[in-house]
């Protein structure tokens, strides 16, 4: 039997959070962490977590699994169980609504701050705007972000300043638009980021890179933004 320890907190009942232990029979199968949660919820309908696509593209089920942020639906037990124990907590650093469900408002607010949409005020052509394959290739590794918040909630700088530091996810998206040959707002975007906190609170700890379930590299993107900021400053 696998020992599963899960963070529980229901604001209507609990004065403070606690860890609850469950015994779980894996029947020897290397299933996903989400499968374990789904099965446990049949026994305990009060267990609460988010989930949607169950294939790692919607970003709903980011959580802290045996100490590492990840998506429950694409994390097999073989990657998560240590000494026959699976420990599941909500993503760290943001307020908990209930059990494994966190309040992501601050995370989304940082995303919105970077103006995550194409800005191009030149008249649009009758067809698409042309973009070379080389220009398009610059968006690879950036546009795939699923806003799961695994990276930002693994970042000590974000824990410290979630209201002022954009965080790795938001900055990855900021660079996605800076890097897009079709976007014309580079100057305004950089001006919007040019303060001591938005970008420069990144200390290159690289937790973001380590946990990103899509294999993206926010630290590298942040490096590019720093370069651009420094270049405009000189």
């Amino acid at each position: 039997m696998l020992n599963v320890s899960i963070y529980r907190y229901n604001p209507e009942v609990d004065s403070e959070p606690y860890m609850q232990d469950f015994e779980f029979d894996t029947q020897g199968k290397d299933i996903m962490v989400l499968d374990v949660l789904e099965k446990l919820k049949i026994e305990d309908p009060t267990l609460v977590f988010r989930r949607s696509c169950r294939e790692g593209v919607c970003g709903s089920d980011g959580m802290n699994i045996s100490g590492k942020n990840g998506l429950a639906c694409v994390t097999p037990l073989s990657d998560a169980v240590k000494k026959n124990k699976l420990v599941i907590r909500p993503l760290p650093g943001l307020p908990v609504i209930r059990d494994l469900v966190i309040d992501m408002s601050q995370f989304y607010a940082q995303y919105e701050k970077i103006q995550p949409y194409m800005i191009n005020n030149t008249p649009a052509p009758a067809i698409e705007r042309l973009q070379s394959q080389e220009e398009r290739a610059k968006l690879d590794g950036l546009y795939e972000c699923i806003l799961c918040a695994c990276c930002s909630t693994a970042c000590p700088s974000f824990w410290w300043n979630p209201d002022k530091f954009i965080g790795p996810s938001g900055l990855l998206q900021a660079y996605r638009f800076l890097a897009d040959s079709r976007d014309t707002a580079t100057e305004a975007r950089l001006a919007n980021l040019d303060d001591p906190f938005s970008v420069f609170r990144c200390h290159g700890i690289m937790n973001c890179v380590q946990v990103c379930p899509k294999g993206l590299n926010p630290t590298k993107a942040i490096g590019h933004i720093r370069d651009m900021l420094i270049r405009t400053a000189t």
Partner: protein
Amino acid sequence: MANIRTMTFDAVIVGGGGSGMRAALQLAQSGYKTAVITKVFPTRSHTVSAQGGITCAIASDDPNDQWQWHMYDTIKGADFIGDQEAIEYMCQTGPEAIFELEHMGLPFSRTEEGRIYQRPFGGQSKDFGKGGQAARTCAAADRTGHALLHTLYQGNLKNETTFLNEWFAVDIVKNSDNAVVGVVALNIETGETVYVKSKATVFATGGAGRIYASTTNAHICTGDGIGMALRAGFPVQDIEMWQFHPTGIHGAGTLVTEGCRGEGGYLVNKDGERFMERYAPNAKDLAGRDVVARSMVLEILEGRGCGPDGDHVYLKLDHLGEETLNAKLPGILELSRTFAHADPVKEPIPVVPTCHYMMGGIPTNVNGQALTVDAEGNDEVIEGFYACGEAACVSVHGANRLGGNSLLDLVVFGRASGMFIEQQLREGIELKDASEADIEAAMAGLNHLNDSTGGENASVLRAELQTIMQNYFGVFRRGDFMQEGITKLAALRPRIKNVALGDKSNAFNTSRIEALELQNLFEVAEATAITAEARTESRGAHAREDFQERDDVNWLCHSVFFPSDKRVGKRGVNFNLKTREAFEPQIRTY
């Protein structure tokens, strides 16, 4: 006494996926007070899982491509019960809708000329089926749905759309004229129930693939809009038409895009034979999805399936080379490695036909207005009620949807609904207010659930429902089996009505949501079952062993399921093309 708060909007859209957000974008730009009610944060909607692309004649791959060829393919793919007026509108308007998305920033893959990359998909042809395979599906690698959904969300942020994120619409509020005047909705985080009042209520609630045990669909695809419409007494159309995607990963159900076969992959049986050459000599692996799915099932039934239980076939990709796979199908490599433990660079992916898409839904016209049928058999608009995307049956997919047409459908008709509602709002919409009793009526189901004592576990009941649908209403269907399935469903209805609510708290109570979703799933399942049994022919995705031929004399029509008396009626297919003569039904081969 309906003692709940009222929030008032000009338009409210239920569903934050592709079609809902496209409609919302249109309305947000119009300046009307619009809200999107969405049970998950918008980018968690199931559109995000769409992979291969969005089919549209933008004449990038082939400068001479014509939208009329796309129209022909779609009508043929639909096995001639798609409404031709709607298909014409979709294929003709499509390029404009695609270019808008590109201008909004959608990161499409590119050709050497810098145009949008297009790949071949099933059922595509040039020159009305006479010019060979076309490559018409616009793609952002194999993450087109993700790219599209995020772009639409970003566009809505730019236009400051109001989102009620993690709110669940419970039931429709109707006034004394039988018009729709909003919904009762539940704020999942707080548990508060609110009457969301609106002059225009758009259902963009997506599909219901979770009625089946094996599905590519997300957990959230529970047919909430269909369930609500049926409970409100409104009919659904062609709901027996369910697409089984040929390539779901065996065991996991996860989708593997048709783009794999578009890029040159193919299916093999246990003997390594490329068996689609026998079933569809011309199009082979790129025949219509219904054709490929049936061929796979026949291979398996005839003992040529792969694996220890012979219960799947293989999708071979390794011959395409690692470089191509990394560039064109990176998401598939990731999914296959995770869920099939197979690296497509070296070995084939085990696949099996898996429930994927609901062709039927709430009948609408091209403006998104929901329809019912009056006593004389004439279409009648339901005032205040609209639908678009997978929840709607406009009907562009008929009995079988072509790959890449779902994203086009949701963009084109989300946009069309938004534009039409804007125009209606400008002209002025007068709907009678709902009475207290009208709001009470929409609260009844939720109140019953909240007051429940005892009852069975929702997960257990859901599994039972899914097994019935999988066993009796799958790829191949037979009258006597289906009758047995219908009997089993009838026995399940009271048990699901009295489902247990094991958690009665307010804050983020997902058990309550799952119980409500289960009730919606049941409504979809029952409508599917009764309609499937009634359609005594084989057409598109609806394949019957006891009626193997298409019957154009009796069934060249839509089915319409009326929930009040569980009656299956018929509705004429629209053959009114504006730009040319209609396409007459022909024998459908690939």
